Every structure is written in structure tokens, then in C-alpha cells.
């Protein structure tokens, strides 16, 4: 197994919990097990856990918080971990609901070992990617935050493909001032071309609504 990260096993049945922990550990995964959803939530809300990437392997049927409720609670608490659900008897409505909330997989408790490991690997990968994306986005947001209000206005016009002359007219400033703003923007954001600028703003979701200029 190559994927890093912690598999959080949540199951109320101590015997199954021990067995699955034992197997996953032997397969080279790092595993933490919890007997209930509440226990996992308590752990996740601690600071240490926020740094680690991971995924949850939860039983769908549990007393107290069941699997789906745990998934929802995690999402609401802003800890959107990928979930792999295990069930003794797969029923379609819960499977649909789980997938809709972003579950990676929905497996029978007796599913083949390889299927389980593949699912977990995919879940860990997804979390790692999501974390990387979050980090990148955080850095971008920081750069965009450095722009002044005027620079943002200029940027919006640039992204929408307007010429310097048009921008100057629209904002009621001199064309040369527009050029100065544009230089400041490219320096602050560390980009070289208008195309790159457009890609970045789209990535961060700025000025998204008027899309009529797209081919």
C-alpha cells in the first residue's frame, strides 16, 4: 500500500473491529478504531487530527449515530472525510443516500480483501488530493487578498477580455493608470499572461457569473 493517511474504523462490534483493524494494519495501513461515531467526532475535533489526511471505514448500522448520520455530522463540522461504508445487508436506499453524500464506496462486510483495500486506497487518495487542492487554494486566496479594491475592479474587466481603453472609460480613470494597476496585479499574483490570470481567477471562483465570452 502506497497511500499515506489514517483509516478511521468505526464499528460497534468489538470482534469485527479488532479483526478488520488487525488485517488493515497487517496490510500496511495506519489504523485507528472507534466503537462509535461520537467517539470519532470527539477525536476529529481535536487539533492534531486536522493535519492528517485519512478516510473513514464505518458500519452503516450502529446504535447511536449510524453510518450515514456520522457522515453528515462530519460534513456539517467541516471535516469532509471520504467514507467507505460496510454493511451486513446492503439496501439500495441507504447506498444511494451514502453515495449522494460523497461516499467512496459501499461494501458488504464480507467483501473480498482486495476490493476493500482498493476502496480504502482510493478514499485516502481522494482525501490527499482534496487536501493538496485546499492548500493550493489557500495560497491563491492569500495572493488575491493582497489586491486593492481598485485592482480587483481592473482585474474583473481584464478577465472579461476588455481593452485598457474600455477599462479606463468604464472606471473613469486614465488609461495609463489602468496599465499601472495591471502591472501591480501581475506582480502580486505572480502570473505572466492574461490567459494564466483568467485560469487562476476561475480556479478560485472569482467573477464567475458572466460567462458569455466563452467560445
Amino acid at each position: 500500500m502506497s497511500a499515506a493517511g489514517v483509516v478511521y474504523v468505526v464499528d460497534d462490534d468489538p470482534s469485527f473491529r479488532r479483526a478488520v483493524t488487525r488485517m488493515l494494519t497487517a496490510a500496511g495501513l495506519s489504523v485507528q478504531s472507534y466503537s462509535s461515531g461520537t467517539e470519532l467526532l470527539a477525536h476529529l475535533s481535536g487539533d492534531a487530527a486536522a493535519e492528517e489526511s485519512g478516510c473513514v471505514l464505518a458500519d452503516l448500522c450502529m446504535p447511536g449515530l449510524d453510518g450515514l448520520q456520522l457522515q453528515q455530522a462530519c460534513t456539517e463540522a467541516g471535516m469532509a472525510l471520504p467514507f467507505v461504508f460496510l454493511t451486513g445487508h446492503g439496501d439500495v436506499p441507504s447506498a444511494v443516500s451514502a453515495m449522494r453524500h460523497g461516499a467512496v464506496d459501499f461494501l458488504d462486510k464480507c467483501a473480498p480483501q482486495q476490493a476493500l483495500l482498493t476502496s480504502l486506497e482510493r478514499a485516502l487518495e481522494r482525501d490527499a488530493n482534496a487536501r493538496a487542492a485546499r492548500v493550493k487554494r489557500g495560497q491563491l486566496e492569500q495572493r488575491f487578498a493582497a489586491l486593492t479594491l481598485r485592482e480587483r475592479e481592473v482585474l474583473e474587466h481584464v478577465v472579461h477580455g476588455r481593452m485598457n481603453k474600455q477599462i479606463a472609460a468604464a472606471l473613469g480613470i486614465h488609461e495609463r493608470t489602468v496599465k499601472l494597476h495591471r502591472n501591480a496585479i501581475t506582480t502580486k499574483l505572480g502570473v505572466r499572461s492574461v490567459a494564466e490570470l483568467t485560469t487562476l481567477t476561475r480556479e478560485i471562483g472569482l467573477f464567475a457569473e458572466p460567462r458569455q465570452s466563452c467560445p
Partner: protein
Amino acid sequence: MSLETTLWSMQAAAALTLAVLYGVVWSIDRRNLANLTLCVVAVAMAVAARDEVGMMHAATTAEYGEWARLIYLPVFFALIGLVLFVQLFLGTGRLWLLWTIVGARVAVIVGNFLSYPTFAWREIVALRHVPFLGGQVALAGSTVVRSWNWLSLASCALIIVFVADAVLRAWRRGGAEGRRKALVVAVGVGLPLIFTIAYAEAVLLGALPLPLLVTPAFLITILVMAVELSRGFLLTRQTRQELEELRSELARAGRVTALGQLASALAHELSQPLSAILRNAEAAEIHLGNPAPDLDELREIVADIRKDDQRAGDVIEQMRSLIKRRTLQMYPLALNEVVEDVISLVHSDALARHVALDYVMTPGLPLVSGDRVHLSQVLLNLIINGMDATQASPAYNKRVVIEAHPREEGRVEVAVTDSGPGLPAGVIDKVFDPFYTTKSGGLGMGLPISRTIIEAHGGRLWAERAPGGCGLTFRFTLAQAQGAVS
């Protein structure tokens, strides 16, 4: 004592024994009038036997005439009793014929006691003594026969016609049992009747120089009747046994249905240990793939596999004991254990349906006398019903509470209360009617079967509005076992 006295006493004793026996049987089951007719005929035969001995030992014509007069009374009851028996037994006689016979025989008996010495004889002229059974007995040597004796003859002929007609009609109606009964009446009642009537009339008319005897042939008839009626008892017993078997079969069907409802929950209950075993085996495989496997870890894995296998086996054993077909086997039971076993069976189902199952255990609850499997079935049924009833309730109010309390008079009461919407007061008792159901997939047999089981335990099962709620409470009582506290 002469031989005829001994023999006739024995006849009378036999007849009286049967009379008492069937009198008691009739007093228990008064609808079965055939038993009463046999009782009446048997008493009549005992009295007739006494009269016959009186006639045989008569010293004077007056004494002889007195006994001859008295014997008309038992003969009246015997003939009417037999005719009614044939009608009750075969049900094919013509009623107008029957009432004509009754009328004619009433006329004969009234005429007999209004005249002297008897209905048939105007006068007994002399007695004769003839050898009989190694002794000498008296009989009417010469008599003057009345002209109205034709009425008695005619009524006897009508009786023979009535019986023959009833037998023929029963025979023609067919059916193995019907024909057998017809044959029994023909041989057991018809032939002795024809013989007795022919013999008695021949003696009365002076054509046969023998004592006037009716009891020996009629005794055969009584015995045949008794055997036939006791066949009825045997059949009743057989029916009851069949009913018992049917009930046990029905109870089993109920258990299997309940298990069908539980199937998914049980699958879950089994998949838990099975999947644990699988994961442990996989872990062991990985460890064994190492050049230096961790033997302690492997030992632990094997021990865990063994434990989970035991757990799966227990689930299967419990299920099997519920499916097995068997009759009630009453033992002292700890109710707490039975309830906990059932809860462990439905536990996963309740979890999946978000129903909270609460068992309020009363410490020091006395042992009850009951059949573990059958009581488990009742509890299973009541709990599943309760969970079904809460289906539409909001998630925070899905609850089934099971309570057990000792009650007065050595009883224990168990209550299963759900938090469902309940039922209107008028409908509550309907839930015990067979095929009454409020569930779309329900058969409506669970509660009637449960009630049968509890009643077979000598208890009662009823439903009422839940105290302080709108759901339903099902309560049943069980007898406390003789002995210690659990």
C-alpha cells in the same frame, strides 16, 4: 339360587352398569341425546329382567298377571328408546312413522294399566310349569287374548318397518361410514328386535309354550349400541389429538413467518461474526507471508476466529430451536433470560429501523412455568408488531418497552408497549381475530397464534391502550413455577 335368577341378575347388573355409565356421559355432554336413549333402554332392560324373573317364579295366576302387567312399562321405554336411538344414530327415519309408533305405544301402555291383567290378556286361566335351564318355571298355560291386541301387534310391525326403512335409506345414501352404521343398526338393533317381537307375540298369543322373555335379545342390542357410541368417544379423542397436532403445526408456521420477517436481521446477526472471521483469516495470511511471522499475533487471531465461530453457531442454534416443530414442554423458566434472548435476535433489526428496545427488568422475578420456544415466539411476535407499529413515528419516538412484573395469585405479567399511533377502542380486540391485519404484508395470524399459545399455558393475552401514551400495550400472564425465585 336357581340358574335363571343368577343369569337374569347378571343381565340386570350389566344393563344397569351401562345405564349409569352412559347417564354420566350424557350429563357431561347433554347435546348428545343418543347417550340418553342408551341409558333409558338399559334401565328398562334391568327392570324388565326383574319382571321376567317375577313371572318365571309366580305361584298364582294373579301374581303372574301382576308381573306381566308391570313388564309393559320397561318394554314401552325400551321400544321408544330404540326407535329414537335409530333416528339419532342414522338420521334417516321417517318422522311421521316415529310419532305414529310413539302414539300407538302410549295407547298400549295406557290401555295396559287401565285393564286387568294386561293389554293382551283378558284372563289368565291357568299356569303351567315347564323345564327351563335345568329348573321349573311358570308360564301362562291358557289365556284369553283381547281383540284390541292388534294395536300392539301393529305398533310392533311399524317399529320393524321404521327401522328397516331407516336402514335402507341410510344404505342408499351411501358413504362407507353411513353404510357401516346402517349395517350395525340392521344387525345389532333390527334382528334382535324382529326376533324379540316375534317371540313375545307368539308367547302372548299362546302359540309358543315358553316363558315371556325380552331381555336376552335386547341385551345384545344395548351392547351393540354401547360399542357404537364409545366409538364416538374414541373419534372425539382422535379429533382432539389431531387438533393438538394442528395447533403445534400452526404455531410452527407462525414461528417460521416471524423468522421470515426477521430474516434480514438474522443475516446481519450472522454476517457480523462471519466477516470478522474472514478479516482475521486475511490478516493471518498476510502475517504468514512474512519470513518471520508474529506467532503471538497468529495465536490471538486463531482464538478470535474460534470465538466468532461459536457466536455464529449460537445464532444458528437459536434459529433452529425456533423452527423445530414440537409440542408444549413446560419447565420453570427465568423470564429475564427468555426476554434477553429474544431481544438479541431482534437487536439488529431494531437498530436498522431506529427503534429503541427497552427491557425493564424486575429484580427477584419469580420463575414461570412455560415452554421456552413457544414463549419466545410470542415475545418475538409482540416485539416485531410493536416495531412495525412505530414505523410512521418520528425517529425520536420509536420505542418498544418490555416489562415483567410479579402479580397477585402467583402470576407474572409481561407487557410489551409500543409508541405507535395505537388503535381506536372498538378495534383493539379485533387484532386477535384471525386474518385481521393492519400491515400491508401481514397475514393476520401472529396474534391469534400468540393468544392460543398463552392460553395453552393457562394464561391470558390481551391488548389495551398504552398507559400515558397513544400506542398499544399487549399484556400476558403466566403462572409462576412452583419453587424458588430466579
